[in-house]
């Protein structure tokens, strides 16, 4: 396994606020890594810093052997990073097909990935012409994930996939993430520790903008002290 993503001591500011005060971790090719931590710890900002949406002021992000400093977000994304934002930020004015079409990086991406996407989310095929606003919350979340699958991405950044979903849909979403991890590496932000622990093989804990712990998920599950200290009650 080789290192796909290496985050080295990044510091990110949003306006005046020093949000990330030194986050470091690395992701190996093919694994699922969960980014854990309390609300407001800086998990989402970490994802956005990797993508350059909130560029880090100091520190470096290396993806596939290249330093991302100074690159535009669209450039970074086009290197093969898919982003599934929190709160299901799909485009409501666009139909399901247009949402997927917009994610194409070269013509025909959607046709090539059709089987994979509609295999994971058969509902979307049925809803293909519906505007995004008319989808239910769960369907929107599926669309948000499907959108990241349209181009060939080497890394998927998935922010809170289980947030606000009914238990049966969480199961479906987990199954989908497990399946797509055979195609691409996944960095996952997840509040729901049970979901995270069942999906990810490794974890990184962020606490007040600093990465404080990392390791194998199997060890964390039995480490009640760490869980209680950084994540609250397990």
């Amino acid at each position, binding site marked *: 396994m080789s290192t796909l993503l290496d985050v080295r001591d990044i510091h990110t500011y949003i306006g005046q606020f020093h949000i990330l005060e030194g986050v470091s971790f690395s992701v190996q090719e093919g694994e699922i890594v969960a980014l854990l931590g309390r609300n407001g710890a800086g998990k989402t900002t970490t994802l956005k810093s990797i993508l350059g949406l909130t560029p880090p002021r100091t520190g470096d992000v290396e993806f596939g052997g290249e330093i991302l400093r100074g690159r535009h977000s*669209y450039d970074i994304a086009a290197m093969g990073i898919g982003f599934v934002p929190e709160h299901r*930020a799909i485009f409501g*004015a*666009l139909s399901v097909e247009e949402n997927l079409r*917009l994610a194409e990086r070269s013509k025909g991406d959607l046709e090539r990935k059709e089987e994979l996407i509609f295999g994971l989310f058969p509902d979307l095929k049925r809803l293909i012409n519906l505007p995004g606003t008319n989808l239910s919350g769960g369907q929107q979340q599926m669309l948000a994930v499907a959108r990241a699958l349209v181009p060939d991405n080497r890394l998927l950044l998935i922010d809170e996939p289980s947030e606000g979903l009914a238990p049966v849909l969480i199961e479906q979403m987990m199954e989908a993430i497990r399946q797509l991890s055979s195609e691409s590496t996944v960095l996952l932000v997840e509040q729901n520790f049970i979901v995270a622990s069942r999906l990810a093989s490794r974890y990184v804990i962020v606490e007040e903008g600093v990465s404080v712990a990392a390791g194998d998920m199997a060890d964390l599950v039995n480490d009640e002290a760490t869980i209680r200290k950084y994540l609250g009650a397990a």
Partner: protein
Amino acid sequence: MTTTAPTATRAANASRWLRSNRGRFGLAAFFGFVLIYSLFAMETDDFFITIIRGLAVGAITFLVVSGLSLILGLMDVLNLAHGELYMLGAYVGWMIYVRPDTFLDLVTPIALALSGMALLPLWRRIASQWPSGKWLRIIVPVVAMVVGLVIIVFLFSKFPLSIWNPDVFTEAPTNDAVALDAGTQVVPEHAGFEGISPLLGLIGMWLGGAVLGFGIAAAVERKAEVAAPKPERSAFVISGAVALLAVVVLAVNNPLTEWWYGLGTTPRFFAAMLLTTVLAFGLGTFIEVVFIRPLYERLLYQIMMTLGLGFILLEAVRSVWGRPQFTMPKPAAFNGRGDGCPGEGFGDLFSGCGTIKLFGSRVRMYNEVFIILVGVVVLVVITLILKKSRLGMTIRAGVQDSEMVEALGINVRRVFTITFGLGVALAALGGVVAGPALGLSTGMGASVLLLALIAMAIGGLTSFPGAAAGAVIVGVMQQLMIRFGSVGIPIPGLAEPFKPSPALVPVSVILLMVVVLLVLPNGLFGREE
């Protein structure tokens, strides 16, 4: 049994739909009432011509408001210079239409300076590798920009330019317009280089643009942390093509001018429409990149910047064209006055007459028919772009969440630039098209901006169909009130019909906006925030 459940849900859905749209139905009923009341309050032919004129005003307003609302929706920028860009479009269109020799004279120096600036990627590359101390990083860009501007301004005065002079009565632009309309226009004398060899002038102008471009590049790269990428070949191709255009236009300036003056007013007018729209697109992209881009997410600065830009454009137009109003002749194809005119009925629509009689009213081919046609064509074209093209899809997505569009790997800044250029191009097209109907005045920008802002509020700020609907509503309302000013509104209980004074016309449009916003705070087609 099986059919009752779906029927029940359908009924429930229908009633929910009716309830959630009750504000819109109420307003539709209100507009319907205004129209029917007006139909009974005035003669039928009066009513007909008033509605047609309202649609024409709506079409012009639509050309301005469509760009305004696209720009606001996509970039959260309220472009207060939009009215003055409309005015600039009218004046530049007038120049290309009435004085193509002036236009051709201007092409060479401006294109040369732009060609030098177009190598910006190369200048950025050089500037970013320039070894310099901190103070040099501040001094070099400022000095380069000043030197570049001085060279350009100095050489510009040496370039051949035959132009009107608003301060001398016999050379005022109004004479050109009158002469073109009367068919007595003669080709003005060609100017030559003044006290400078043409070759030196050409090379100097290019260098001036290059130095200015280097100054801008050095200013941009001052804070950059990584070296600018190697310039792509396209930059050199574009720069070379523009320089070539400049030289070719200079070489064939005289015969081209003669040929252009020999054309009829109709091809000259359509050439002016096309060229002004293209040039305005270029100007719009330039404004976005240079002035707007550094100010995203700084709302107050944006407002000051666009407002100030509007004032600068206004004063620039006043200094070149003068303050007095003047006319723009109607193209001959819409201005026939000979035998058989005015035409009768729809059969004479293409007879070439300036006016035709429809339903007993005299409809002017240019002022009403052509302008409405342009509005409809633009509406259809922009709707198709928004619905069918990838650019349109990106714009619609970007209106909602431009950060997410960028996260998909799409260069959303480029879409911003194109959209801004498109908006400015539409406003300028509106100006050219309005010119022959309304005449040219330096106040035309401010008045159209007011109408456009009201139309935008009525339509729902960022909705494109809303912009179209708002523009038509505002236009029709304005024309109805103007008409009622002369025929009077019969109000039950009043002995004399009430005649709204001219001052009440803008007030009525604003009142209409108040009514709409009271019922629907987000406008007719606005999204709920």
